[in-house]
């Protein structure tokens, strides 16, 4: 199980809990702001100057290209069953062999990238939109509403995504839509708390008070001043959380709770391949490699971005001090 990489700044005691496990403290989030203005292009250029990050970017780009062009790249129909060639090893016709029903592993793998992104992107975006706007409003309104939502966020965070999946998918039945819902629900509180903390820190600024004193309405202050400043830094984190969503999605499918066969999905492939693990490794070799490569690439990219945006931690990580 991997955890969302997004964390909130340290000013929330109740959250040391949820913040810690991801291993990557994003205490730099607040400092991010100053650096976003440095220009995204410059940051991007310095990120790409590091070999590990460059490789990661190439892998992520490849994932996207493969997902988009899936039908053009695959030699076979990913769901075409051919029992005569079941569980064959790699050959010129099937580069990664075939699965227990004789389907082409490579084609399924390629289409799997598409399914992974089809689920990961909407669920993360949905979670971000709902979580961030809730956090923004709750942080701005404050008071009892704020406290109620903090408890609510904590309650949902107390369900690790797989447990939340167990509960929700029992009741909803497995489908792509329910999987998107499960992932979104499990990520909303993280973004909610982050956006809330960001809003609180923005509102401490003098200019917000000045704006109010000048007679600007609450809605105007929130919309044109607090929101852009509070949320822009979180956008980087959204990108970094995509592999978390992919991992949850494949995990649920592997357990048989998520996307259902015969959909060509990495988790479904793991589930199918698991049952014939003693006979052939080829059905699960592809998805295993794909999951490791994709998740690691996003982590490397995220770490590098964080280092670039927060030079203090960069020095420490590189051991230069």
């Amino acid at each position: 199980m991997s955890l969302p990489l997004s964390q909130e700044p340290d000013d929330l005691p109740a959250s040391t809990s949820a913040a810690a496990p991801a291993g990557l403290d994003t205490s730099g989030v607040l400092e991010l702001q100053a650096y976003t203005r440095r220009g995204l292009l410059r940051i991007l250029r310095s990120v790409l100057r590091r070999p590990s990050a460059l490789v990661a970017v190439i892998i992520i780009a490849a994932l996207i290209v493969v997902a988009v062009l899936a039908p053009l790249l695959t030699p076979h129909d990913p769901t075409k069953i051919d029992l005569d060639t079941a569980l064959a090893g790699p050959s010129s016709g099937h580069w990664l062999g075939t699965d227990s029903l004789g389907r082409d592993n490579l084609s399924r793998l390629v289409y799997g990238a598409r399914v992974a992104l089809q689920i990961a992107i909407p669920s993360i975006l949905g979670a971000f939109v709902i979580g961030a706007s809730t956090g923004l409003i709750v942080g701005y309104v404050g008071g009892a509403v704020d406290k109620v939502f903090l408890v609510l966020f904590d309650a949902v965070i107390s369900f690790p995504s797989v447990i939340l999946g167990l509960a929700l998918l029992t009741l909803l039945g497995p489908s792509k839509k329910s999987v998107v819902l499960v992932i979104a629900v499990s990520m909303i509180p993280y973004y909610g708390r982050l956006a809330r903390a960001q809003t609180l820190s923005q509102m401490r600024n003098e200019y917000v008070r000045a704006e109010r004193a000048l007679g600007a309405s609450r809605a105007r202050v929130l919309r044109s001043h607090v929101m852009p400043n509070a949320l822009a830094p979180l956008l980087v984190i959204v990108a970094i959380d995509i592999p978390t969503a992919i991992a949850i999605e494949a995990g649920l499918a592997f357990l048989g709770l998520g996307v259902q066969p015969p959909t060509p999905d990495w988790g479904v492939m793991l589930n199918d391949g698991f049952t014939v693990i003693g006979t052939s490794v080829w059905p699960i070799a592809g998805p295993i490699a794909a999951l490791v490569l994709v998740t690691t690439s996003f982590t490397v990219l995220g770490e590098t971005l964080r280092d670039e945006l927060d030079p203090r931690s960069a020095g420490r990580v590189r051991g230069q001090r």
Partner: protein
Amino acid sequence: MLIYVAKRLVLAIAVLVVIAFLLIALVTVVPGDPARTVLGTHATPELMRQVRQTMGLDQPVWEQTWNFLWGALHGDLGTDFITRAPVRDELGRPFVNTLVLSLTSMILAAAIGIPAGVVSAVNSGGVIDRIVRAVSMVLLSTPVYVVGLVLLLVLSVHFHWLPSLGGGSFSDPLDYAQRLLMPAFALAVYWIAYLARLVRSSMLEVLEQDYVRTSRAYGVPESTINFRVALRNALVPIVALLGLMLGYTLAGTVYVEQIFGRVGLGSLALSSIGNRDWPVVRGVVLIYAVAFVLGSLLADVAYRVLDPRLRVEQDAGVFV
């Protein structure tokens, strides 16, 4: 400090009540009637009403929540739809198995992760450090089920070193331990990487301090600085982390038990989902949630006990 603990406790209880409420409310919100699940599609309305009554589904949600919580406090988690046995009895044995698995993986994680972090920090910038960092980066990203499948593939299917399926029983401790090894390691991998990175960065942070430089200048041996000063400081956040690790490793057991064919809470939850046996699922989810909430409560409190610096400003409360 006491005030903080009290407030944190109130928050934990509030969270648990909300969780219980959500678990109950979900059934009423989501399409599909549990009574229908038990009786099948052809049940008469009269029978349906009876069953709904015995399940307590005819009561308002808040009353059901109260009954559920009150029952849970007294060790009553409801009755299994299918076997008609109390859910608590069905959860007992799997719970022990799962807990043993989680705790073993935590011990493994500490035993491997902490030394790895120390070696990495002491050789900061060197070859070993680079290797530890690269490996931990990969392991930190890899989902637990991928780790489990790879281990199974290499150690059981390819080399036949370890038995692959089943958890064994307590009556044969050696066999039980042997069967525990691989799943526990699979669960531990993420935390090994996590701890290695955490220990490394906190040690390096201490080693940057002025007083360390002063100690060096006074001729304090390097080993004393590394272990007495740096490592001791690095261990503080780890102790606080143990509570959280318990919650997260417990959740990971869902995957690991499936892969290694073990009887436990996770596999029980999966099979009851197949049967749409809601009381069992609900019981398991409640146990996980309680473990998680208690774990983060312990973590937050331990953090403040161990690091007095945090107490000063944040005694103010849970809700900043």
